[in-house]
């Protein structure tokens, strides 16, 4: 086996999406990168796993039995561990296109974006109206409210920060969203679906936050523009599951000389004068005899996920998720093969929204006839977490298998990393898309490199041979 180089510019720990994007762009920019993961597969928390792995991970089967066998070949399943979708006009799409990682991953639309109004059996589930015309047809509003919503969406669509005549007499940087809603005379139910299923806020905190109106309008515009791009929903999704994304960026990094090592445990992080100076690690496959391959190398910086630095991160919340296998589409969703369905918090007496993200064989994540739905929310209680997800689980109808673990801690770094040159990513949050993840990528890059990340033009070279 080849020797590890004596020194790297950057060591990256964990092959989650955040880490793999950073490895990819750092490698393209000429940095010498060593990327390790303690697992035997790519993706860390952003991996997609097969059905057998799911049963074994959650342990909800009797030992000796093999319940996954009745669901076809285990490898035909690619089950995401994080319930997220890509905004088709979002920043992750931009990064994928800018780096040409789109060559390795194929995308398909998510068939619909839905929101629930009311609760229990009488709840209305309807498509989220995405433009003025759809607002007029939506069953979510009465006839007069439809027109007010149309006026609001037209205003958002025409809004141009540089052109005060489009501001409708408001200074958004000083205004609360409540004032904006009031100005258009919108009813509470309309505010709910706009704020939660278009602007995708998970709580109502944004409404009275001064100056948040601008952010809200930008979020609605992202939704509307993403919707306009392919037509069915604002979301797209990679064939074979989200786990393809970290693999694609890892390949980008490798093509630019990045060194990849799975099954590698970090034994020690070395410091010199308070700054990181290198690592000691062991690569050993599961079941492999002997000590494995021990090595030591110097590095100037480390980027890693929180699981590699338990003493440098803190918990900022917990989220709950239940991964469910269905053999039918979800009721009241036009038999959509994939969707996002948001149950705004106020509709079910909560502080945080409940999300349902569903994909199916249309995305090559399971055999034909099956659907994978993930119900998630932020934990608000300390016990009986399944009750918190109940309104979402009810929405699914009959569930074949349900995988739900304890609340999942969301970590963030205690320090910004400039002191020791160790830059730690955030856990994937409870949002339904990757926009906050790409914010974290940019933030990490800024902290690590002292400059803004520009992804434009980071295309792969076309030569097999490096130009040196």
């Amino acid at each position, binding site marked *: 086996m080849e020797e590890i180089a004596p020194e790297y510019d950057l060591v990256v720990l964990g092959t989650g999406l955040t880490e793999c994007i950073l490895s990819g762009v750092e490698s393209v920019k000429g940095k010498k990168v060593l990327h390790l993961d303690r697992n035997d597969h790519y993706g860390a928390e952003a991996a997609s796993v097969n059905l057998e792995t799911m049963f074994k991970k959650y342990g909800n089967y009797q030992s000796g039995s093999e319940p996954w066998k009745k669901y076809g070949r285990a490898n035909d399943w690619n089950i995401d561990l994080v319930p997220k979708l890509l905004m*088709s006009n979002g920043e992750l799409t931009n990064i994928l296109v800018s780096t040409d990682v*789109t060559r390795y991953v194929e995308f398909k639309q998510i068939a619909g974006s839905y929101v629930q109004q009311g609760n229990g059996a009488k709840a209305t589930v309807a498509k989220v109206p995405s433009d003025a015309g759809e607002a007029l047809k939506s069953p979510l509003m009465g006839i007069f409210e439809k027109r007010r919503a149309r006026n609001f969406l037209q205003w958002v669509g025409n809004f141009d920060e540089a052109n005060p005549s489009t501001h409708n007499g408001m200074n958004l940087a000083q205004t609360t969203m409540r004032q904006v809603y009031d100005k258009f005379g919108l009813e509470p139910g309309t505010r709910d679906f706009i704020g939660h299923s278009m602007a995708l806020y998970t709580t109502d905190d944004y409404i009275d936050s001064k100056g948040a109106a601008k952010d809200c309008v930008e979020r609605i515009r992202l939704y509307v523009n993403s919707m306009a791009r392919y037509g069915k929903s604002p979301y797209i999704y990679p064939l074979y599951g989200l786990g393809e994304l970290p693999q694609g960026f890892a390949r980008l990094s*490798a093509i630019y000389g990045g060194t990849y090592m799975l099954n590698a445990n970090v034994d020690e992080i070395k410091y010199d004068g308070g700054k990181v100076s290198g690592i000691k690690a062991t690569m050993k496959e599961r079941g492999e005899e002997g000590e494995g391959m021990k090595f030591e190398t110097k590095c100037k910086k480390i980027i890693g996920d929180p699981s590699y630095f338990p003493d440098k991160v803190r918990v900022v919340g917990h989220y709950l998720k239940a991964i469910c296998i269905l053999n039918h589409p979800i009721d009241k969703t036009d038999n959509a093969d994939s969707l996002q369905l948001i149950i705004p918090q106020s509709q079910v007496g909560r502080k945080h929204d409940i999300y349902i993200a569903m994909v199916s064989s249309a995305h090559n994540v399971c055999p034909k006839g099956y659907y994978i739905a993930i119900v998630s929310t932020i934990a608000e209680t300390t016990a009986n977490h399944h009750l918190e997800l109940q309104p979402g689980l009810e929405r699914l109808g009959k569930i074949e298998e349900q995988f739900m673990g304890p609340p999942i801690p969301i970590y963030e770094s205690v320090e910004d990393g400039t002191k020791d040159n160790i830059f730690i990513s955030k856990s994937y949050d409870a949002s339904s898309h990757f926009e906050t993840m790409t914010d974290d990528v940019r933030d990490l890059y800024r902290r690590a490199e002292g400059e803004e990340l520009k992804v434009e033009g980071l295309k792969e070279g076309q030569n097999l*041979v490096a130009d040196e």
Partner: protein
Amino acid sequence: MASRVQQGGRPGGARFAQFKLVLLGESAVGKSSLVLRFVKDQFDDYRESTIGAAFLTQTIALDEQTTVKFEIWDTAGQERYKSLAPMYYRNANCAVVVYDITQASSLDKAKAWVKELQRQANENIIIALAGNKADLVAEQPDKRAVPTADAEAYAKEANLLFFETSAKTAENVKELFTAIAKKLPIEQASQRGMRGAAGRTAGVDLGSRAEPGSGAGGPGGCNC
């Protein structure tokens, strides 16, 4: 979408099919050199490890009517510490597993890669075994560490195509890829492709707003 096929634009029943080919084998057996010889008809004695190519494409005309285009994926060094991603094998139609005929251990590695392919790749993948660096043995016969008959017997038993090649002299390189092309299910791929093309309403091309023609692999890699 096992293969990417374009039908039409060629009158008179012409067939055109595109297939994904993956390279496997131990480091430094000459995987990239074989492809470089095949695609660009070049060879470089002191080439560094693979860098900078997503994949290369090369077209073979099997006859006047039939054209096969290979989309060739290199390991990008991810095989070095056994860290190839499942994505690499995904939808590969064919594979070239390379060993070095002057290094006996490299054939053992090749056998392990064949096993890995059988585990990870499509069931009907076409696999070719290439014993590279034939030029070294032509110059100094005592450098040979793997007898042709041994490798050939293994290839036959495992149902692999087999060639001893030299990326340096081009010996058997074109023959290797042509033999693979001949075994590929071009007819089926054409039919699948037509159905696929008709039903291709949901797939999205993210690169639609990027400048066209940027990249070795053609537009977006999504032209199935």
